[in-house]
Structures are given as structure tokens and as C-alpha cells.
């Protein structure tokens, strides 16, 4: 497997006090849309900044397309398009001036730079704002300009940090569509704590917690980690009937059922038991009872469940972490 990003024992400790990235080994396949997932303060942004050479690792090393990262790794940065969270842009410039400056920093000749800038401004929907100074831009417009800025040099790797932060629903949808589109030709790393974004766009995933990479793999691998097969049945009827149903379901082979909050029954299916058969058996019991079925929840929050499970496992490991 050809790798776009490879880190070995990457560690970043700030001022001998705060461990931001802890002995991280990461492999991002070339051509993938990789979601870097983790709660706030997990070390996602620090990881991206280490790859860019904006920060120096305390230990370990990072490589992008086989080249070592560092403050003077110009060759590495020429391969990367970076979108920071809520990018800080020079307010006194206009969008074309800003993108032109970035094009020059990427050593793009004028005949390549100019048409690309105009195409990018059109693509991110800022053609109508080219005569405005950046300081008058809204958060969404700044993010769009930041996206265009990350694409000026047409790099093969995009590192986008919280690209949907602070965006309204339509801008968010636009950004996710764009990531999906970019993923067809480039390697895209999206750092976020928004699970639904990851679910929609990513084919590979890394989960960070307290500076450590606690899972890397494909989205399928992630969902497969949910060994338990859970269904939640929302029922209408008396509490006594629900309790009775719970007892009857628990007596079925390979099924563990217990009352969840309110009128909900949580059904857990053991490994090796057919999910569809188990569901049929439970639904038969519901049909035979005085209860009526309101809704069945299953699988929709698979990523979320797997993610939370990973975090719980990581915390439970204690010293072994």
C-alpha cells in the first residue's frame, strides 16, 4: 500500500508540561479520504501542524510522500494544501490579491496562477465578493476562501482542519460535497470531531484520544468493531407489558433483552446468531403482546457507537495505555 502520510512514534510535548501527541503511529493510504477523529484537545490540530513543519516533534518522525517533515521542509509543504480551523487571513487584502500572493509563494508562474485563481473563486462561490476586503467576510466566506487557498497550488494532499466549523447547513453541505469530489483525485485528511461528517465522506479513519491514536483502519473495520448487535424497540403500552416482553425476549436463545429508558426495550444479539432471525423472533413476541411498536433503531449510529466504545475502552485500559 502506497502511503501519503507515515508517522513513527510521533510525540509532541509542550514545555515539558502538556503531551499533545503521544507516541503516534499513523499510516494514511494515498488516494484515501482519511478522517482524523477525536474529541477537542485530542491532538488532531497538533498532528497536522507537525506534518506541516509549523511545529517540531519532541520525538519520532513524520513523512509525507516519503519526505521528512520539518520547519524547512519546503518540498513537503509544496505537496500539501492546508486549511486551518477558522483561518486567520490578512484582512487588508482582497481575495484575488490573497490567492495571488499564495500562488507566488508556491512559485506558480503567472500563466498558471491567474486562470487557476479565477476558477477557484468561481468554484467556492466567491466571484461576487472579489472587490471586498477579507476583513468584511463572514466566517463561511473565510472558510471558502481558505479552501480556495489550500487548492491554489493543486497539491496532491489536503489537510483540512475542522472544515465545517461555524458553517451554515448549505455551506456545510457544499464543503462535504467538495471533499467527496477532491477525494477522487487527491488524498484528503479531514480532522474533525463531527461524526456525521466522517460518516458521509471518509473511507479511512483514525481515532485520537488524549494524544494517542487508538484506532486506524477503514470505515468498515471501524463499524465491524461493534461486536454487539443492538436494536432498540420503542413501544407503546403499559410498563407491566413491556417488562413481560423483556422477560420473554431474554428467554430466547442468543438474545439478551432489558428495559432501556422509558418504554424502550434494548435487544442485544449474541455473536453467531442470525440478526434477521433474532429480530423476527422478537417482533413475533411484540405482535403477540398488548404492545404496539413505535420505532426500531439500529445501525444508524454505528460510527458513533464504535467511536464511543473506543474511547471507553481506551480509558478503561488505564496503565496499559
Amino acid at each position, binding site marked *: 500500500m502506497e502511503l501519503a502520510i507515515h508517522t513513527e512514534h510521533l510525540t509532541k510535548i509542550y514545555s515539558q508540561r502538556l503531551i499533545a501527541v503521544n507516541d503516534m503511529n499513523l499510516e494514511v493510504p494515498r488516494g484515501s479520504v482519511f478522517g482524523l477523529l477525536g474529541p477537542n484537545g485530542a491532538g488532531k490540530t497538533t498532528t497536522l501542524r507537525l506534518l506541516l513543519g509549523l*511545529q517540531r516533534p519532541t520525538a519520532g518522525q513524520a513523512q509525507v510522500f516519503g519526505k521528512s517533515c520539518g520547519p524547512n521542509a519546503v*518540498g513537503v509543504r509544496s505537496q500539501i494544501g492546508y486549511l486551518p480551523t477558522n483561518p*486567520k*487571513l*490578512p484582512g487588508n*487584502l482582497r481575495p484575488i490579491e490573497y490567492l495571488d500572493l499564495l500562488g*507566488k*509563494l508556491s512559485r506558480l508562474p503567472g500563466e498558471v496562477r491567474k486562470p487557476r485563481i479565477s476558477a477557484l473563486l468561481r468554484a467556492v462561490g466567491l466571484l461576487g465578493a472579489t472587490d471586498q476586503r477579507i476583513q468584511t467576510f463572514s466566517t463561511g466566506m473565510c472558510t471558502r476562501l481558505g479552501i480556495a487557498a489550500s487548492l491554489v497550488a493543486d497539491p496532491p494532499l489536503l489537510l483540512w482542519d475542522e472544515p465545517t466549523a461555524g458553517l451554515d447547513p448549505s455551506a456545510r453541505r457544499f464543503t462535504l460535497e467538495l471533499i467527496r469530489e477532491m477525494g477522487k483525485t487527491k488524498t484528503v485528511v479531514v480532522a474533525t470531531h463531527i461524526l456525521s461528517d466522517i460518516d458521509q465522506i471518509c473511507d479511512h479513519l483514525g481515532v485520537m484520544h488524549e494524544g494517542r491514536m487508538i484506532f486506524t483502519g477503514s470505515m468498515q473495520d471501524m463499524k465491524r468493531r461493534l461486536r454487539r448487535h443492538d436494536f432498540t424497540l420503542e413501544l407503546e403500552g403499559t410498563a407491566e407489558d413491556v417488562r413481560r416482553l423483556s422477560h420473554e425476549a431474554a428467554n430466547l436463545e442468543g438474545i439478551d433483552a432489558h428495559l432501556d429508558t422509558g418504554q424502550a426495550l434494548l435487544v442485544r444479539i449474541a455473536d453467531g446468531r442470525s440478526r434477521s432471525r433474532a429480530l423476527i423472533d422478537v417482533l413475533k413476541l411484540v405482535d403477540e403482546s398488548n404492545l404496539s411498536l413505535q420505532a426500531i433503531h439500529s445501525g444508524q449510529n454505528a460510527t458513533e457507537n464504535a467511536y464511543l466504545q473506543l474511547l471507553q475502552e481506551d480509558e478503561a485500559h488505564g496503565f496499559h495505555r
Partner: protein
Amino acid sequence: MDSTAKSSKIGTRMMPYMAIPRHDMKTLWSSRLVRLWLGATALLTLLLVGSNWSNFMDGTLIASLLFPYLVFPWFFVAVVLGVTPVSGSRAETLADGILCRPVSRLEYLLATWSARVVLVLSVYLVVTVPAIVLVILAKRPVSEDTVTVYGIITSLGVVGLVLTFLVSLGFFTGTLLRKPLLAVVVLVFIWYPIGLILSIFSLEEFSPISLNQAISTQLRRSWRQTDTEAKDNANVKDADVITDQVSNFFSVLSGVQPKQKANKPDFFEGEKFDDLSLFRVTLGYGLPTIAAVILASLCFYWRDL
């Protein structure tokens, strides 16, 4: 490879180095500080020329025009302009916008330092050169003076060098301390008593006030005079003085008694300032300028953004 292709390749490689100063100068030019400075320095020059029009001879008047750049208040502006590039909230903007691009930190630092030096020198020259030309060419009711073109150019050069040093010192302090306000306060506290600090190291001749006093003498010097002095091994003497001064500097720093008394120039004797040596001044301000830029680069290289 033909020359056109070669020059285009060099042009492409130099593109960031041209783009950053242009961007920086544009940003600085749009700042209130620079615009106010330009207006204020023009006004002050006009006032100085107007009020001393019929009092001072050419050399004294020109020296008085250069005083605000060496002593007060314009050194403060030079320091503030030097402090800002990689400190405070600007560091975040440049990390997000510039340093995540294929630009090395050294390239960025040198480009932004050049922009500031060019801007400071431009404002200084744009105001002082026309004023000096006016003073020299106008018929004023004062006795004739012997100011030379060589003297004017070297005097402007000395003040330009001091301003470059101030920008570089601000640049280094801003990079080291990270907080622009703190850096400016520290520099103000260093620059005001600089004469006292320099006298501890027997380097009074480099103090801004001494330089300003010596400038009226320098303005009346001719190239031929300097050439003759050079033939009289003046540079050998300069080198001896410099060696003694450096040795004395480190002796004072380390607390060790100097082996021999520093070979002090006759600079202050009789207040004639005949002993002003461009060679020593160039070394005295040039070397710290280079050191400040190198130290700023090292500080910035090791810094996390």
C-alpha cells in the same frame, strides 16, 4: 539551457522572496503608524528647517535634521516596525497563510526584514534628501559652509545604518520575547540609557548622541581628506582600536580586569569629533545588525507556531 529559460527559472525560485516584501510593504504602508510617521517626520523636518533657516550653517542644520532619527523620537518607530513581523497575533496569521506554504522560515524572515528596512529607509530618505538639497542650494542669510557631497552621503549612510540596526534589534527582540509590547518596552529601556551602557564598555563613540554631534564634522569632510588619512595608516589604527574595544567589551562582560587600558580614540577631545571613523562605525553597527538577524533566525527556527 538558454539564458531566457535560466532567468525565468531564477525568477520562479525568487518569487516568494519578491512576493513577501511586496505584501509586507503594502500592509505596512496601509498601517496608520507608517502614514502618521511619514506625515510627522515631514512636518518636523519642515519646522526644523524653517526655524533654523537663518541661524544655522549648512552642516549644523543638516545634523539637526538627522537628530530625530538617531535619538528621539523616530528611533521608536523604527523599533516598533521591527518588532511586529513574527510576534503577537501576526504569528498566527503568518502560520495559517504563509509558513504552511513552500516557504522556508529563513526565506520568510529575510524577506520580511528586508521589507521593513526598505520601508524605514525610504521614509527617512524621502523626507531628508529633499530637505538637505533645499538647505544646500538655497541662498540663506548665514555664512558659507564647507559641506561636501561625500560628507552628506556618508552621514546619511551612518544614520541609515543606525536605523537598520534599530529595525534589526526590534526584529530580534520581537522574535525572542514574542510579545510586541514587551519587546518595545525592553528596547526603549535599553536605547534611552545606551550612552551610559556604551560608556561601561568604553564605546561612547557609538552612542547616538555622539554620532549626531560628529555628523556636522563628517558633513564637512572631503573624500580627498579621508583618502589621505587612509594613506596615513588610519585603518590600521582603527583596527587596533576595534581590537581593544572588543577585548574591553568582553572583559567588562566577564567581570575580568582588562589586561591593558582600551585604546580609546581621541574622539571627544576638544569636541571636534575629528576622529569619527566610518570604518569603526560601520563595524560597530553593522556587526550587531548581522548578529541580530542571525539570532532572530535561530530563535524563529526553533519556535513552534
